[in-house]
C-alpha cells in the first residue's frame, strides 16, 4: 500500500510542480497562459543545453532554467501580456500564439536550419538529460523501494510550494500581489505599482515552469511539443483547486494524483485517466468556483 501511495504522491507532485506557476499567473493575474507548457519545455531544453555545453548536471540546470524561463516570462509580459490585462480571452489567444512561436523556435533552431546551421541539442528530434547516478539507484527500507528521483521531485515541489507560500503571505511584495488578485483597481488606488508587481509575478510563475521542465526532463523525452499536453493537466489542477488559491492547488493536485495512482494500480492507466477526468467534471459541477476560492476581481 505504501508503494501505491508513493506513486500517487509522485503523480501529485508532478501535477503540482506544473500547476504552481499557473496558479500564480492565472490566479493572480487573470492571464490564461497557454504558453505555460512551452515554458516548461524551455526549462527542459535549458537542462539539455547546459548538459551539452557546460557539462552541468541537473542541480546546476535547476537555477539556470529558473532564470531562463523567468527572463523569457518577463519578456512575454512586457511585450504582449501587459497590453492585454483584463481581456482574459485575448490573453488565451495571444499566449497560444506565443506557445506555437516557442515550439517552432526550438524546432527550427531559431531559424538557423534555413542556413544549414545545426545547434546540437535543438531541432525537431528527441533529446534526453542524464540523471546523476545516485538519483536512479533505488534503495530499500523493508519492503518499500525508495526511488530517489521521484522522492527528489516530491521534496523539491514541497520546497517550492513553501517558498511560494512564504513569498505570497509573508513578504510585502506578496501582500501587494494578493491585493492585486482581489481587486487590481483598488490596489492601484492604494499606491501599488500594479504593472511592476504583475511583471514580477508573471516572471516568477514562468520561472517555476522552467524548474518543472528540468525535473520532467529526467523521466520524459524532451521534444519541442512536450509542453502542449502539460498545460491541460496544469489547468485541470488550478480550476479544480479554485483559481488563485495556493492551498486549493495543493489539495487538488494531491487529490487528482492519488486518485490516478490508486486506479492505475487497481485497474489500469487508461481507466485511471478516465476516472480522473470524470472526477474533475463532478467537482466542477458541484463547485464551479473550485474547491477553495474567494471572491475577487
Amino acid at each position, binding site marked *: 500500500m505504501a508503494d501505491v501511495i508513493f506513486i500517487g504522491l509522485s503523480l501529485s507532485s508532478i501535477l503540482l510542480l506544473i500547476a504552481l506557476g499557473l496558479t500564480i499567473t492565472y490566479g493572480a493575474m487573470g492571464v490564461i497562459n497557454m504558453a505555460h507548457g512551452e515554458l516548461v519545455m524551455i526549462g527542459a531544453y535549458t537542462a539539455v543545453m547546459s548538459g551539452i555545453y557546460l557539462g552541468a548536471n541537473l542541480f546546476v540546470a535547476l537555477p539556470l532554467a529558473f532564470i531562463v524561463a523567468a527572463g523569457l516570462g518577463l519578456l512575454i509580459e512586457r511585450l504582449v501580456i501587459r497590453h492585454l490585462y483584463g481581456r482574459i480571452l485575448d490573453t488565451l489567444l495571444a499566449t497560444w500564439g506565443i506557445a506555437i512561436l516557442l515550439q517552432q523556435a526550438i524546432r527550427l533552431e531559431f531559424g538557423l536550419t534555413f542556413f544549414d546551421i545545426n545547434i546540437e541539442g535543438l531541432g525537431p528530434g528527441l533529446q534526453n538529460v542524464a540523471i546523476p547516478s545516485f538519483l536512479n539507484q533505488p534503495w530499500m527500507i523493508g519492503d518499500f523501494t525508495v526511488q530517489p528521483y521521484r522522492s527528489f521531485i516530491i521534496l523539491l515541489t514541497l520546497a517550492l510550494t513553501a517558498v511560494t507560500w512564504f513569498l505570497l503571505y509573508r513578504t510585502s511584495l506578496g501582500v501587494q500581489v494578493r491585493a492585486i488578485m482581489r481587486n487590481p483597481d483598488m490596489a492601484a488606488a492604494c499606491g501599488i505599482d500594479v504593472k511592476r508587481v504583475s511583471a514580477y509575478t508573471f516572471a516568477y510563475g514562468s520561472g517555476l515552469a522552467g524548474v518543472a521542465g528540468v525535473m520532467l526532463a529526467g523521466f520524459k523525452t524532451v*521534444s519541442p511539443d512536450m509542453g502542449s499536453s502539460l498545460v491541460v493537466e496544469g489547468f485541470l489542477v488550478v480550476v479544480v483547486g479554485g483559481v488563485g488559491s495556493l492551498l486549493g492547488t495543493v489539495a487538488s493536485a494531491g487529490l487528482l494524483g492519488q486518485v490516478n495512482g490508486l486506479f*492505475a494500480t487497481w485497474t489500469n492507466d487508461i481507466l485511471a485517466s478516465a476516472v480522473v477526468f470524470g472526477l474533475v467534471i463532478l467537482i466542477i459541477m458541484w463547485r464551479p468556483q473550485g474547491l477553495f476560492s474567494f471572491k475577487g476581481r
Partner: protein
Amino acid sequence: MPVQPTILGDHGIMTINRRKFLKKSAVVGATGLAAPYFFTRTVQAADEIEVGVLFSLTGGLSIIEKSLADATNMAIDEINAEGGVMGKMIKPIVEDGASDPKTYNEKASKLVIRDRVPTVFGSYTSASRKAVLPVFEKRRNLYFYPTYYEGFECSKNVIYTGAVPNQQLSNFIPWIVSNLGKKKFFIVGSNYIYPREMAKVSKILIEQQGAEWIADEYLELGHSEWGAMVKKIKDSGCDVVLSNVVGDSVVAFYREFKNQGLTHDTLPICATVTSEIEIAAMGAEFAVDSFTSFPYFQAIDTDRNQAFIERYRKYVNDPKAVTHHALESSYFQVYLWKQALEKSGEATPDAIREGVRGQVFDAPNGTVTIHSENLHTYLTPRIAQWGSDGQGTIIDEYDSPTMPLPYVAYGETEDNLFCTAQGLDTTKL
C-alpha cells in the same frame, strides 16, 4: 535538408511543362477525351518517371518519418546517379503527411489523381497506411510501405517491405524461453492495433512453448507516466517483459524501469519496437542488456551495411545519424521497385506489381525477396542485445530469410496461405 526545396522547386517547373502539354493536347484535340491522359503519359515517358514520397515531415512523427523520407530520397538519388531506371530519371514528388492520417489521405489522393504517379512510397504508422489504403485500392495504384506492422492485411495495391509479426516473434519467443530460460511473460504495449495484434501472436507462441503469460497491459499512446505500470510488473512475479510500447513512451518506460530498481539482467525487457532511434533518445544506459527483435540492426557487420550507413550519414550530413529497420526497408524497397519496373518494362501500377512478385535484392540486412503471392517480404529475423554505446550486438539470427505470414495470428502457416495472388481467402479466417 537542402534536398527538399530543390525537389519541390523542380516539381513546380514540371507542372508548368505539363500544363503546356495539356494545352497543346487540347489544341490538337483530335483524340478527344483520351487526349489529356495520353499526353501526360508521354510527358512522363519522355525523360523521367515521377513517384510519390509521402512521409510526415512535420508534427510528432516527423522525428522518425523524416529519416524514412531521407532514405527513400537517397535510394532515388543513387539510382539516378547510375543512369536511372530504363534510361529515365526518377523524379520524387515529396508530400508531407503532417503526422495526421487525414492529411495522408488527401496527399495520397493528390499524388494518385493529380500527379498520376504509378507508385507512392510512404507511411510509418498503421493509422496512416489505413488512411491511404482506400485511395490506392479504388484508383488501382501502388503503395510501397516500409514499416514493420501487425499483419492482418491483404491488398494487391500495397507492397509491404517491413516485418510482419511472425518475422519478429516466431524466432524471439522460443529463443527467450529456451536460451534465457524465461517462463512467465508480462506483455505490455501502447493501446492501439499494432501492440494488440503483436500480443495476440505472442500468446499463441508463448503457449506453444509451454510458457505462460501472466498479464497483458496497455498504456495510452504517447503517455509517459509509467509509475503504476512498472510497479505492476514488479509485483507480478514475471521473469521477462515483452514490450510492444511505441513512440516516446518507450523512453519513459525504460527510464522508469531502471528508476524502480529493475534491471535487465534479472528481468529483461524484450522489445519489438525499440530500435536504435529510441535507444538514442532515451540514453543508452537505460537499455543496456535488454533485447530487441528486428530483421535489421545498424550493428549488422557486413561491408554492405557499413557502406550503407556511411552513405546515409553523408547524405543527411550528420556523422552520428543512426539507421534502423524501417529506414533500411525504405531504402531497399526503391531498388525492388526499380527492378520490378525493369522486368515489366512499363511504368504502370499493374505492371510494376506483376514485376515485383518474387523480386530479389541484396539489401544492407541481407537478401530480401518479395513473396510472389502476398506481396510481403522475406526477411531474416535477428535478435540483438543493447550495449552501453547505444548499439546492439546480434546474438541470434536465422540462416535464411523467413516467409512473411501476415495472418499468422489466425492460424496461417507456410503451407496454408490465407493471402494469395487472388486476394484474401476469407473462408480460412
